[in-house]
């Protein structure tokens, strides 16, 4: 570039003579624009512009060029002003402040969001596949525990013979009512009628060799399963013990319709072998994961409550306690009474040696809770399974 500049200067010097007249023209143009010409000079100059196109274009060009120089000057000036303002700003701390907001997670997301999305989809897919193949997606849920006290199956088998001979011996020799043999599976049952029909859970009596029911005063009676409905987890037992006497009219009746949310309910059963009263409330009209077979109730139940009656304030039997959810404290499930009634209807008539007449009279209705329990006590049994 400097070489070029010298060349231009050199050529400029050669043309000095022509430049002299050009300078005069420039001077005239400037005087013309600055309004320094006399009126006469002005008209003469305007005539010259009209006659000589070369002069005219020089005039126009000069005006534009000077305008550009001035604008350039203004720009430089403005830039200086802006720079001065800029220098007063603490850009560094401002930047720090801005950089805190988009932290590294945000930045990582911004820079790699497509990759992260792909990775996440793969991870979700893999997790679902694993769950599917391991059967975790099916309804067999490990968190659902049936309320029976299960002692080791192996010990059941090894003790079986022992126990059988024991009971036979006791029955044969003493005819005693008090057979105090603790069963391996224990649940609760309750009377359906005065003549010895009892309802409990299917899972309580499943695979049982022999069943005894024990009442509140400690008398045990032999019972047999006359009907099961595994789909509803219900079983109907009949006491077939010669020492069994008629219970008297069952004080509760069986509710056909669905009970309302929030209703006060309670159960009575034998968790751990002792009779326990369990008060609570009806918390959902559907059971575990929305199955319509069950109610969800908030009652402190334990293993052994299975098969116990669920009653409302007025003494209507509204369900059969069935299981609990381990992950939610206080959430238990009960089979709705409608299914119990269905089960009873389904019993083949030749399985019934005596008539099964359900109570329609409710004698608990007007009583206080303690009196209700006193009455109820005689109709609830501990179910022992051998």
């Amino acid at each position: 570039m400097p070489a070029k500049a010298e060349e231009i200067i050199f050529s400029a010097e050669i043309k000095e003579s022509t430049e002299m007249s050009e300078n005069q023209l420039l001077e005239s143009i400037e005087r013309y624009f600055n309004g320094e010409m006399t009126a006469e000079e002005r008209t003469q100059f305007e005539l010259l512009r009209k006659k000589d196109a070369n002069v005219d274009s020089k005039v126009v060009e000069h005006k534009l060029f000077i305008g550009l120089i001035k604008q350039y000057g203004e720009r430089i000036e403005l830039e200086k002003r802006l720079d001065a303002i800029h220098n007063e700003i603490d850009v560094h701390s401002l930047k720090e402040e801005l950089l805190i907001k988009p932290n590294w997670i945000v930045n990582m997301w911004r820079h790699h969001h497509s990759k992260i999305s792909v990775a996440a989809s793969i991870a979700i897919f893999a997790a679902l596949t694993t769950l599917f193949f391991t059967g975790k997606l099916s309804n067999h849920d490990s968190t659902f525990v049936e309320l029976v006290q299960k002692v080791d199956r192996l010990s059941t088998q090894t003790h079986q013979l022992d126990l059988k001979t024991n009971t036979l011996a006791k029955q044969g020799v003493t005819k005693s009512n008090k057979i105090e043999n603790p069963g391996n599976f224990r649940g609760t049952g309750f009377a359906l009628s005065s003549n010895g029909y009892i309802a409990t859970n299917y899972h309580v009596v499943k695979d049982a060799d022999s069943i005894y029911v024990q009442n509140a005063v400690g008398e045990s009676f032999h019972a047999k399963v006359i009907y099961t409905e595994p789909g509803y987890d219900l079983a109907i037992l009949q006491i077939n013990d010669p020492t069994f006497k008629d219970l008297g009219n069952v004080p509760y009746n069986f509710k056909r319709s669905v009970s309302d949310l929030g209703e006060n309910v309670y159960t009575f059963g034998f968790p751990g072998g002792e009779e326990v009263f369990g008060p609570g409330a009806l918390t959902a009209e559907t059971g575990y994961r929305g199955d319509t077979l069950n109610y969800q109730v908030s009652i402190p139940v334990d293993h052994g409550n299975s098969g116990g009656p669920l009653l409302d304030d007025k003494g209507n039997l509204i369900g059969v306690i069935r299981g609990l959810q381990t992950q939610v404290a206080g959430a238990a499930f009960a089979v709705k009474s409608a299914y119990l009634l269905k089960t009873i209807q389904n019993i083949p008539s030749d399985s019934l040696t005596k008539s099964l007449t359900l109570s329609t009279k409710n004698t608990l209705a007007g009583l206080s809770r303690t009196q209700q329990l006193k009455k109820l006590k005689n109709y609830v049994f501990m179910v022992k399974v051998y």
Partner: protein
Amino acid sequence: MNKDIKASAPTDSEIVLGILNNSEIVLKRLYTTYFPMILQLIINNNGNEDDAKDIYQEAIIVLYNKVKSGEFELSSKLKTYIYSVCRRLWLKRLSQMNRYGGDIRDFEEYLPVDDEVETHNDRDIQFNKMEAALQLLGEPCKTIMEDFYIHNRSMQEICERFGYTNADNAKTQKYKCLQRLKKLFFQQK
């Protein structure tokens, strides 16, 4: 500091009036109000604080010239206008540097300001030519030109400054310089 500036953010019409009145205070408030926004835009889009300064100053100049020329209408928020111009300028700069990833992370709405940016660009090219021409012109011509045409100094002052014995010599020198400047300017591509 940032929050204090935001709290005293000047209204849009205040700024327009301030620019028309050459108010240094308003220019300063305008500048400090929206700079953080543009710093954020540039930093979040592959730029640094120097880029942010360049782009922001260009945008302020675009706004300034538009207001001065009387073409500026307050049809949108000034903030949106500044953001839009900076966004456009930065996109252009990014594609020139081949750093443009095809995606700019916006956090404000923006307007199409392509015409403004084009006009500004054309003018910039002219100014760059003028700057180059003045550099090539060398001294004392450069200073004479700047003093007379930009700083509006009288020939008398220029005479004294450069020690010319009479005003005619100075005048001749001035026109010589102007001729050469024009030549240098128009010779550039």
